[in-house]
């Protein structure tokens, strides 16, 4: 089993929790550790109760953990809510005023060490010191954050940090040991949304339209922060319908385009999805899931929009659904989404969720400088005249020119159309056009990303999962293996189309199969049965708004 340390920072919105968490996480990454961050927050700007957890390890980890080794309690409530999760040797950092009797509490005189607005820096110092992080590293980070814009703030921060380290050195005996890393690997720290934004940039994105919606918003925000340098355009729409139509217009004109939203906003885009299918316009659509129905729990996580996305839009047309299982996959599958959208001319989806969107990880260098990306459109020189945008081809893909970029005329029609793109009521042609569009599935099946598999080929127990639960399932399986059980895991990061021969043998070979999903009805499990006939008898489902953890899975397994 992977040895990890789990740090949980708790408090209310407005206490600088996220800044503290990010700084600590980044410092850990720079020190060479792997991390998995889980952010849990409420739909509220100030107050409430939020947490920022960092699971730290020296080896690769991809799942959050429930048990806590270091609890940084920015208020009493945190102890009340999460004290029970502390491991035996777990340590709590809390203000000295807090009356709770707890053996493992480090009572910090926050007020002595700094003004309230620097309390998070105090906590950072104490935690850093306990964890054995280098003060200089943290200082450097604070400098980077403030030095340029507010040098005096940087100075104050540094001072507070030093005080905290000092206090800690004098007053605490305990430490929350992290094995030192002699030669730290250079890694970047990214969360799922940032990885999607960067993946999109590396794949040639030129246009992104959005309407803010948690937990997708940080995708356009990340893109916006690069716009000056990258020369891309990020446009806020007045609603999601505007957003998808703008993106389709931009893509039609030749700017690779993406939109990002969550379930409710996506529902409004579904007519546009159908339009992308009919006009064969490339578009990448990110749906960052949160618990529904309706507004539901806007800041929590869930995997309950799979079926909606898979069947969204009226009529029949091909599509592709990727569901990244890690931050790295967010990057690479986004690239693949752009490439697929361009090559097959239609909608390609990335299905993530709040957990993954907000989960920071240490990511190995991505080598963006060398990554290729597709050119939008076909070369006008190789196109037959008169140009017919929707000429029937064997694979269903027709040459796509960009309007205004040659003397050929380029059209798109939401009505059924002839090869030239003009509205038609020729019903025999209609059938051929339906077939042409669906024909693309052939190529897409051929290129499908196969599911990942770990474990023996005929295991006693096989977990099946998709999307962001990957890490939790992977780890649960490996822990069970360590405990001597013959457990395997089959994980899908491409949800559609599915290629049964890539995995059906695995399902059939296992003595028992259990699906693990972040929803209440086992949507993927149903889909598998629809596509293969294979019925998964048992499911581990979670739908309370929290991410699936290895412990969540193991608890259920134990009770079986």
């Amino acid at each position: 089993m992977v040895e990890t340390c789990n740090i949980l920072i708790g408090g209310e919105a407005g206490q600088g929790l996220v800044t503290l968490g990010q700084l600590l996480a980044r410092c850990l990454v720079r020190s060479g550790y792997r991390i998995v961050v889980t952010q849990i927050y409420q739909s509220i700007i100030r107050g409430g109760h939020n947490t920022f957890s960092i699971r730290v390890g020296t080896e690769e980890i991809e799942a959050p953990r429930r048990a806590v080794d270091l609890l940084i309690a920015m208020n009493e409530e945190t102890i009340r809510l999460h004290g029970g999760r502390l491991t035996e040797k777990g340590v709590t950092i809390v203000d000295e005023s807090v009356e709770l009797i707890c053996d493992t509490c480090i009572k910090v005189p926050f007020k002595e060490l700094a003004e309230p607005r620097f309390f998070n820096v105090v906590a950072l110092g104490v935690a850093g010191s306990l964890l054995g992080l280098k003060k200089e590293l943290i200082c450097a980070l604070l400098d980077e954050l403030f030095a340029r814009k507010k040098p005096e703030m940087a100075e104050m921060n540094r001072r507070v940090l030093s005080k905290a380290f000092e206090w800690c050195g004098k007053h605490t005996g305990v430490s929350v040991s992290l094995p030192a890393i002699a030669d730290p690997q250079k890694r970047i720290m990214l969360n799922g949304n940032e990885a999607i934004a960067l993946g999109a940039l590396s794949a040639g994105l030129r246009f992104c339209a959005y309407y803010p919606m948690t937990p997708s918003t940080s995708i356009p925000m990340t893109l916006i922060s690069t716009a000056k340098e990258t020369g891309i355009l990020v446009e806020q729409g007045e609603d999601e319908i505007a957003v998808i139509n703008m993106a389709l217009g931009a893509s039609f004109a030749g700017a690779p385009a993406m939109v990002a939203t969550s379930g409710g906003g996506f529902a409004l885009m579904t007519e546009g999805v159908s339009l992308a299918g009919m006009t064969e316009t490339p578009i990448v659509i990110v749906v960052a899931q949160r618990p529904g129905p309706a507004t539901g729990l806007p800041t929590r996580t869930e995997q309950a929009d799979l079926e909606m996305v898979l069947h969204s839009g009226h009529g029949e047309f091909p599509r592709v659904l990727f569901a990244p299982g890690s931050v790295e996959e967010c990057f690479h599958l986004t690239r693949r989404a752009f490439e697929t959208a361009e090559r097959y001319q239609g909608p390609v989806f990335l299905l993530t969720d709040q957990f993954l969107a907000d989960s920071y990880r240490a990511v190995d260098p991505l080598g963006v400088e060398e990554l290729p990306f597709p050119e939008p459109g076909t070369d006008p020189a190789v196109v037959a005249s008169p140009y017919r945008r929707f000429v029937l081809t064997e694979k269903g893909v027709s040459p796509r020119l960009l309007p205004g970029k040659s003397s050929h005329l380029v059209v798109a029609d939401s009505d059924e159309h002839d090869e030239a793109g003009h509205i038609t009521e020729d019903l025999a042609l209609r059938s051929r056009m339906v077939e042409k569009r669906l024909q693309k599935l052939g190529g897409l099946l051929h290129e499908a990303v196969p599911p990942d598999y770990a474990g023996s080929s005929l295991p006693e127990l096989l977990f099946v999962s998709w999307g962001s639960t990957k890490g939790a399932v992977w780890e649960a399986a490996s822990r069970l293996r360590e405990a001597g059980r013959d457990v395997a895991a089959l994980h899908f990061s491409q949800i559609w189309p599915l290629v049964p021969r890539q995995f059906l043998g695995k399902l059939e070979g296992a003595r028992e199969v259990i699906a693990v999903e972040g929803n209440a009805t086992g949507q993927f499990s149903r889909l598998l049965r629809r596509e293969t006939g294979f019925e998964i008898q048992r499911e581990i489902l979670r739908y309370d708004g929290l991410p699936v953890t290895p412990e969540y899975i193991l608890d259920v397994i134990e009770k079986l």
Partner: protein
Amino acid sequence: MIDPADYGDFETAWCPGCGNFPILKAVKTVLAGAGIAPHQVLFVSGIGQAAKTPHYLNANFFNGLHGRALHVATGAKLANPELVVIVESGDGCTYGEGGNHFLAALRRNLDLTLIVHDNQIYGLTKGQASPTSEEGFVTKAQPEGVQQEPFHPLATAVALHGGFVARSLSGMADHMVEMIRQGIAHKGFSLIDILQPCVSFNKVNTFGWYKKRCYELPAEYDPTDWEAAMKTAMSWGEKIPVGVIYQNDRSDYAARLPVLKAGPLVGRKTAPAVLGRILSRYL
């Protein structure tokens, strides 16, 4: 030299006598007159009778969803400001289903030309009231007559400081040509609401009805005077003004966006080194 015939001559699905025909002709005349070649222009439309217009033109086009033409146009124009982008659709499409986008387009002031075939009716769906149908107007769907204030597209456009706001009448060939010409020439968002007789479903607002009421704004009318424009935009009834009702010099949205100063998005690439630099910030 571009000839109107370069824009083709198609069989249409419109009723004989429909007010859409003269508009189609005017559009061709303007484009040819301005020397704009078919491949330089992009027509975007929604769904409805008016929205079929691009199918009767030899040009680039995107015939999208009912109500959603404006933002397909916005996206395309932002991606490639070199395209001349013209949006043509009906009153229902633009002011009904697409009402929110109409507001947004006015605010954004991107250099699009919006030509609304305003027949005060839903033509393609066979005659329900549209947002511009007058109070009391009786249809199969509104047997007791429309009980709402009609939408005032021109007044709304003026209230939101739309860049170029004009009205014309489908029967007035030269006037239409002039309005469309100016609209395309205007750098910024242009609205040309063209009163368009629907011979099949609107038996009240006929060509005769419009003809009797429409008068051209006098030469001395100052379309830059916002207050006067507000009043003029609201005139309706026995006298209906046609002409450029309002115009201002708000700058074109694309011209305001730093990122577009370097040229169209289309065809541009982010240098790998830039990406590397961005990635390094996440260290």
